[in-house]
């Protein structure tokens, strides 16, 4: 996995030899194992970790452990560690999900969790997951994720949380439902017996009962206090005097006792304790780097032996950490006594971490040393890895800690900043950062310098600097698209394509993808399609298969707008095939393919299949969907409900889809508000529809654009309805028709046959209103001839009874009779549409059947002629005869009709 996992965080601390056993608490913990959650909540120093590690050794279940730290507030990192922890008890746990977390756009946390919950319920044994130090987590997302996990927790798993404060989980509800087992400070305090046991047994102190009582009451059974007190007494001759003084003193206990303990230590030990207190984790060499001495490993071992609040973090006694509270107090002392050395100590740590490849720790210590230029340089070098590991949240936090003028001197860092902002959705300040970087590049150009020899400019990652111009343009294109500035998006994406070499597939793919989306947004569909397709081909070469699969959504959407439903279906099938080829676990994008195919099945009125596909997409799990998946699946379901005449349900689903909508750089060509307005019209809620028109600022004076096309078509429907109900004056109809004609012309010019069909259908109603049914049949006939070869059904059937009447009239006039008959069966029924097999008036000859079979392939006319060894002319007359007998007028319709008749 990509996020470097520190195994020390997954290590289950071992109970200390001869530590105080706490059977009463272990018993209580075991008794709560059948509940969902164990919460151990108490301040620092109450022995939370020690207790759970004793329990882990003793509970008879497998235990996965995760010691949390501040950096784990990044949801992606948290989940990566969550999975890594479970992998310690089940090796192959969550492997597929890890890949998803690393993808360009990680799926929403809840869908990742759903996948993990499914995997947990497949584990064959019961286990406990311990989250230690949960109070360091400061993330709404993670808290919500855990609440969700607890809500759906499989019985295999028990969650145990240790924290200094109550975690923001639904504790009260869980308490009421008997799902929570709690131990709090009052339970954790040492009892007088435990106090005696501890002081005598573990710390080998000979104390009287009165002395023990005095210590116990002064510390209130607070374990850390007792341990510190014991350390302060070791080797003292005047213990009674010490206890008396301690009991009568009001000072903050830890302060008082640490002072006593430090006074007892020889100088070199004291210095070691203070200087190494800056470290979150300790090992011999790292301590040596910080102290400038060579006795790190020996010291650590001695401290552990002496019960000095040093906790081993692994089996091999390589990594240790100080007890948190002890470290805090030591650090306060260090700051008081050696303020001047602080920065140097942090720098030494930073250098050691950098050399040993721990870039995050190196950056953190550089920031603590306030050596911001060092931190900036480290960030620049760590960027590529962090981008791969999707740690932009951590990255952004660090960048914000660096003074601005320092960032501004660094073009590469400025671009990294822009990327981090863009990833976090903070798009308002992206451009500013890009301009900072650009100014340096312009200056470098002016001085004909390609390297960082400009006065005041700092570049650490020279490779990145060389490609910086294209990075700037790429992020600028993404930012422009996010803000709806199409021409800027195009300009910048083209610029990237002009700058990067053919071999830079990742940048080319990203840029071509953005450019394709921009063309699509502006309605230039054919250009959009091949540009986007080219982008996907590059991403495939770059190995970003998931993005390629997800890209099918855009390609199919474009095809649908062009009225090429069959090609759209093929796009999805290919996408699905690519996904299946990658094997298990399902790749991201798989769920989107099923939703897309469902939508196409719905259009051809195969509703059962459409539903089946939607189910299939749900089965794949939300985590295999791209950002729009949930919204699209909701819309698909709404349209099925609409087809079934269940308008209320459809509206509810549309409202839900509105909540789920994310743009993900896609043009919003069918706004949900317009889809809702169409349902209102069907329900006769004309006022609501008119309100919608006003809210959206729709009028026949609008200028036309592809982005508003669907809204405009819907607007005309509203205007026609209001004319038909006598609400509008007689002049409004010709105005609406004139607007329709403009819409039609624009759609034809953009070769958007999908839109053309919709517009012609509305026009059929408009012309019928104005001059009667036969006038309406003219645009209808055209719509039918465009729609038949692609197998459209719902686009007519969803119009309801008025369309049925028009189609009956068309049938009387022998307009596309087969197709119209088939369409008519789709009205007012929600059953799958089994086409009525009209017997042929004239059977096809053997030869004609041969031709028909070849027409079904992708072969061209001349190829078929060669295959059958006939001339092209002969072939033409064969096909003409076939079309005549089948009552169709083109190759695709012929194949469709022949399939219906079972001629193959």
């Amino acid at each position, binding site marked *: 996995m990509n996020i470097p996992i520190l195994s020390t965080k997954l290590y289950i601390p071992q109970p200390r030899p001869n530590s105080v056993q706490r059977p009463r608490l272990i018993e209580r913990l075991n008794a709560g194992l059948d509940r969902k959650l164990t919460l151990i909540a108490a301040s620092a*120093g109450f022995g939370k970790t020690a207790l759970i590690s004793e329990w882990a050794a003793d509970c008879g279940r497998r235990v996965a452990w995760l010691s949390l730290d501040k950096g784990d507030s990044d949801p992606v990192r948290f989940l990566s560690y969550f999975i890594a922890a479970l992998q310690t008890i089940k090796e192959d746990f969550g492997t597929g999900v890890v890949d998803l977390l690393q993808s360009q756009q990680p799926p929403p946390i809840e869908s990742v969790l759903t996948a993990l919950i499914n995997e947990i319920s497949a584990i064959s044994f019961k286990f406990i997951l311990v989250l230690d130090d949960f109070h360091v987590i400061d993330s709404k997302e993670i808290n919500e994720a855990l609440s969700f996990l607890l809500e759906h927790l499989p019985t295999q798993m028990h969650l145990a949380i240790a924290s*200094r404060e109550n975690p923001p989980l639904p504790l009260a509800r869980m308490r009421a439902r008997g799902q929570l087992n709690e131990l709090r400070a009052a339970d954790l305090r040492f009892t007088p017996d435990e106090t005696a046991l501890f002081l005598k047994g573990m710390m080998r102190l000979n104390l009287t009962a009165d002395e023990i009582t005095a210590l116990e009451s002064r510390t209130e059974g607070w374990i850390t206090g007792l341990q510190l007190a014991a350390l302060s007494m070791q080797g003292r001759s005047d213990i009674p005097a010490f206890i008396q003084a301690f009991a009568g003193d*009001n000072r903050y206990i830890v302060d008082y006792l640490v002072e006593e303990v430090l006074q007892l230590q020889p100088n070199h030990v004291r210095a070691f304790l203070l200087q190494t207190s800056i470290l979150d984790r300790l090992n011999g060499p790292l301590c040596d780097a910080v102290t400038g001495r060579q006795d790190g490993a020996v010291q650590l071992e001695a401290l552990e032996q002496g019960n000095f609040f040093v906790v081993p973090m692994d089996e091999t006694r390589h990594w240790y950490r100080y007890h948190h*509270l002890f470290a*805090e107090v030591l650090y306060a002392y260090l700051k008081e006594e050696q303020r001047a050395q602080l920065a140097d100590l942090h720098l030494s740590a930073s250098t050691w971490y950098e050399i040993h490849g721990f870039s995050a720790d190196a950056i953190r210590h550089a920031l603590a040393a306030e050596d911001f230029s060092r931190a900036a340089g480290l960030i620049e070098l760590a960027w590529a890895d962090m981008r791969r590991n999707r740690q932009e949240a951590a990255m952004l936090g660090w960048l914000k800690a660096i003074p601005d003028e320092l960032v501004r001197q660094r073009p590469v860092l400025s671009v990294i900043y822009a990327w981090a902002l863009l990833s976090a959705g903070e798009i308002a300040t992206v451009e500013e950062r890009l301009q900072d970087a650009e100014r340096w590049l312009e200056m470098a150009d002016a001085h004909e310098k390609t390297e960082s020899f400009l006065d005041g400019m700092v570049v650490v990652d020279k490779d990145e600097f060389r490609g910086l111009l294209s990075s700037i343009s790429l992020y600028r294109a993404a930012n422009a698209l996010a803000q709806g500035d199409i021409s800027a998006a195009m300009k910048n994406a083209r610029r990237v394509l002009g700058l990067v070499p053919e071999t830079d597939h990742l940048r080319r793919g990203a840029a071509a993808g953005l450019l394709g989306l921009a063309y699509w947004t502006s309605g230039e569909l054919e250009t959009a399609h091949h540009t986007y397709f080219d982008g996907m081909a590059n991403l495939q070469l770059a190995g970003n298969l998931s993005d390629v699969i997800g890209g099918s959504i855009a390609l199919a959407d474009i095809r649908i707008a062009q009225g090429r439903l069959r090609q759209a279906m093929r796009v999805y099938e290919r996408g699905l095939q690519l996904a299946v080829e990658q094997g298990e676990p399902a790749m991201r994008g798989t769920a989107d393919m099923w939703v897309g195919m469902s939508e196409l099945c719905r259009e051809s009125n195969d509703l059962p299949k459409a539903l089946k596909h939607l189910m299939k997409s749900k089965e794949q799990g939300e985590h295999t969907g791209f950002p729009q998946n949930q919204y699209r699946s909701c819309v698909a379901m709404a349209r099925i409900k609409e087809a079934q005449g269940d308008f209320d349900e459809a509206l509810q689903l549309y409202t839900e889809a509105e909540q789920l909508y994310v743009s993900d750089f896609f043009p919003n060509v069918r706004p949900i508000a317009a889809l809702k307005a169409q349902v209102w019209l069907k329900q006769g809620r004309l006022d609501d529809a008119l309100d919608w028109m006003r809210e959206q600022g729709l009028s026949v004076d609008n200028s036309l654009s592809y982005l508003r096309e669907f809204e405009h078509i819907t607007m005309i429907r509203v205007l026609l309805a209001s004319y038909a109900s006598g609400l509008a004056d007689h002049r409004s109809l010709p105005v609406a028709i004139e607007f329709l004609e403009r819409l039609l012309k624009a759609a034809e010019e953009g070769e958007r046959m999908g839109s053309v069909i919709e517009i012609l259908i509305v026009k059929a109603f408009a012309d019928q209103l104005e001059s009667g049914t036969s006038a309406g049949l003219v645009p209808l006939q055209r719509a039918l001839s465009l729609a038949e070869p692609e197998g459209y059904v719902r686009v007519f059937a969803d119009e309801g009874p008025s369309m049925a009447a028009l189609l009956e009239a068309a049938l009387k006039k022998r307009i596309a009779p087969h197709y119209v008959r088939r369409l008519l069966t789709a009205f007012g029924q929600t059953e799958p549409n089994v086409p009525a097999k009209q017997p042929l008036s004239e059977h096809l000859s053997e030869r004609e059947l041969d031709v028909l079979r070849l027409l079904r392939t992708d072969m061209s006319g001349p190829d078929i002629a060669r295959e059958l060894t006939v001339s092209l002319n002969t072939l033409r007359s064969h096909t003409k005869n076939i079309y005549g007998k089948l009552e169709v007028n083109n190759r695709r319709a012929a194949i469709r009709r022949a399939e219906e008749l079972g001629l193959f």
Partner: protein
Amino acid sequence: MNGEKEASNGYETPELYEIRLKGHLNDRWADWFEGFSFTLESDGTTILSGAVADQAALHGMLRKIRDLGLPLISVIQVGNNQ
């Protein structure tokens, strides 16, 4: 807002707070509780007084107190820093 003063989202006027803790704190912790003065009371408590920029700063302060395991007795707002 149940009669409380409405908090805005931006920077507010710094508010003066008094935070009472159990135990006497040494001056070396002044660094921790930036800008707060310490008063050691005869009942064995310490009062930290000072201005906090906003609610987020106050909560950061309380978190530090939590992390030192210092028992918190009271938090009182004593008017603003005018």
